[in-house]
């Protein structure tokens, strides 16, 4: 794999986790010493790694997780508005993943099961604080909500897969996961 040429200016990258488990972000950190190369090429905007709260104009947006509530929809649309290239990172962003396993159950049943009937709960009730984002009736992959430019599957995608993908992208090549880097599990 040829190293990415150093771009004229650093690319601005935003990342977020919607209905995900942060596993994809952990796997991102698994590129290990390549992180040193990466910080020469990119700088972070909004991301759990920077704690910037609002996404600004970016070259690349990485989205982990599917869309399970109204806030996810809002954040995803903000990312789409601000990122030139938007990437679905990992199984949940690509097809809903584990959170989408609730899709065949009525939402009210899920909520009642967890907040009212769970053994050991006394006077349980479904939270309804107006601050809480409303859950959607079904968990959706992100391409069903906004246009997505590239998809990087895997649960999570491996460090080498993420590195290959990003170096392709930074170098201006169409990212390609060949030679055993493509996995759905």
């Amino acid at each position: 794999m040829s190293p990415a040429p150093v771009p004229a200016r650093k690319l601005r990258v935003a990342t977020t986790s919607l209905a995900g488990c942060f596993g994809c972000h952990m796997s991102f950190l698994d590129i290990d010493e390549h992180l040193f190369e990466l910080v020469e090429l990119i700088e972070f905007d909004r991301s759990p790694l920077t704690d910037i709260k609002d996404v600004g104009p970016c070259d690349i947006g990485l989205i982990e997780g599917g869309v399970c509530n109204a806030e996810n929809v809002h954040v995803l649309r903000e990312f789409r508005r601000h990122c030139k290239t938007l990437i679905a990172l990992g199984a949940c962003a690509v097809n809903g993943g584990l959170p989408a396993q609730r899709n065949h159950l009525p939402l009210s049943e899920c909520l009642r099961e967890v907040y009212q009937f769970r053994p050991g709960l006394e006077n349980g009730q479904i939270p309804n604080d107006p601050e809480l984002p409303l859950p959607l009736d079904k968990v959706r992959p992100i391409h069903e909500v906004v246009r997505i430019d590239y998809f990087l599957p895997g649960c999570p995608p491996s460090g080498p897969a993420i590195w290959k993908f990003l170096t392709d992208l930074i170098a201006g090549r169409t990212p390609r996961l060949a030679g055993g880097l493509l996995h759905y599990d």
Partner: protein
Amino acid sequence: MTKQFLLDGQPVPFEDGQTILEAARKAGHYIPSLCWHQDFPPHGSCKLCIVKAAGRHVSACATPAKEGWEVESNTPEMNGERRGLLQMLFVEGNHFCPSCEKSGNCELQALGYEYEMLTPRFRHFFPERPVDASHPDMLLDFNRCIFCELCVRASRDVDGKSVFALTGRGIHKHLAVNAESGRLADTDFSKDDLAARICPVGVILPKGRGFAVPIGERTFDTETIRSKTLKEEES
């Protein structure tokens, strides 16, 4: 003189009655398949074996080869159509590889890798398909059924039991179990049946095995479906 046709420009010999797929594989060329099995007549439902023969789209598994035909298979156009078919199969069922015991041994997934399917692309149906865990040895997870009818054919034609059938039409099509109750436990199905091992995806699964072989060390983690298929053809 043996008869021959051209597959992507290469001559492939065949005998009368042989399909494009059989002749191609025998000559060491890969054409993908999912619902086809060498021990059964072709079913022609998955269309992964699609090729262009004399300018027309045909299923290579069900079309007898013809002298002098020019057949296109491994082209960007055909492979793109295969990717589209795979994407439709993925959104039509509930295919969540990370939580599937068959992951790494699944032919649908392996074909996704082979044709570099990165996204299911379409809107997901998220159909409701409850599992049947009634049988002591085997589990049925209908979420992953692609309606290839291999289990139907194996159970009927080899095991002599007719445990399975496809029923319903369109989006309501589903695999049914041949018992008044509809439960696998109420049939004479056995873990030693051919139908118990023939499913190309993760519907018919043995209980108690699960992740005995870890993810990452399974069949298609170490080998592509293309090379595995061609190797089996040689032996």
